[in-house]
């Protein structure tokens, strides 16, 4: 399976609103910019599995690095360098 993004690519997490559970893209990262830190691999899509489907097609998973101060840009930035790493599936990413 080919990966759309590679290490170092700038991406944004889609802002799509969702209701209910079982979505693996945390709300607090929606619409936030990050950088692809690593490619985790391809996995059965948990967002399909959780609704009783077979989880196919497989979904590409990335480790995305976010600057914590950017994620919470409406708050005073905490001191020092602070990063957030989250695993985000490809369907939740768009290029920046």
């Amino acid at each position: 399976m080919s990966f759309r993004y590679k290490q170092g690519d700038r991406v944004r997490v889609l802002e799509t609103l969702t209701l209910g559970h079982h979505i693996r893209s945390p709300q607090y990262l929606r619409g936030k910019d990050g950088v692809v830190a690593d490619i985790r691999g391809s996995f059965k899509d948990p967002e399909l599995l959780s609704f009783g489907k077979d989880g196919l097609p497989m979904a590409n998973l990335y480790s995305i690095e976010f600057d914590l101060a950017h994620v919470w840009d409406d708050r005073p930035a905490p001191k020092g360098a602070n990063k957030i790493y989250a695993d985000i599936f490809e369907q939740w990413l768009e290029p920046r």
Partner: protein
Amino acid sequence: MAKEKPEASTEPASTEGPSYFERRARATADLLKEKGVLSADETRNVKHGHDHGHDDVFEQLHANNPIDTTEHEHTLFEKQMLAIGNLLREKGIISTDEVRRKIDENEGVSPHQGSRVVARAWTDPEYKKRLFEDGIAAAEELGVDMSTANQLIAVENSDDVHHVVVCTLCSCYPRQLLGQPPDWYKSTNYRTRVVVDPRRVLKEMGLELPEPVEVRVVDSTAETRYLVLPRRPEGTEGWSEEQLAGLVTRNSMVGCSNALTPMQKEMMAD
């Protein structure tokens, strides 16, 4: 600790190891006998016996039971075990956490599995390299059952970088290596605050990080489970793997503390 296997042989056999309900049932039965709440005969009755008329409670329990992945409609046996567990909780006889811990105990999972991995990585550079390349294979090398894990990534704490793990969506945790997550890990407080001001949360937990240290909050949102490799404490040159493993606490492998220093360990023993 001596372990009985009460009634295990009378439970439905499975070719794929014990199911969710079999494990839960065995742990519950163990606890009931240990606490003298039920005799062996009563325990047997419970398992083969009657409807206790707690359908409403059962429904409620089931709705709150996200880790139950049973695909068929619950059998009478399964319903009974759930209802009994619920009754015992209502009476304050056993808690959900106790059952979880018992399941861990029966299956031999404790944070010690993770401690062994860390201690080996501290003493064997080749092993450490393998751990970073393929965490599951490296854990399996030490005899840890990783069959339920999709991916294990080790992240290393150093003088410059400190990793701390959270699951903001639920309570994803490397259970194969650390057992069940502690209550604070699952708490809304920890999950919502550590991604906002990690330094403050860590300070509240007793770990004050110097400002130049980069903090990396790792949000375990998907298939990957994370193991933090804490810094090896000073003054442990020449220590055996087993001695070192004794310094590796659960919290240090989540990144909420450092490994114990030799002095801290000694004070704990007193």
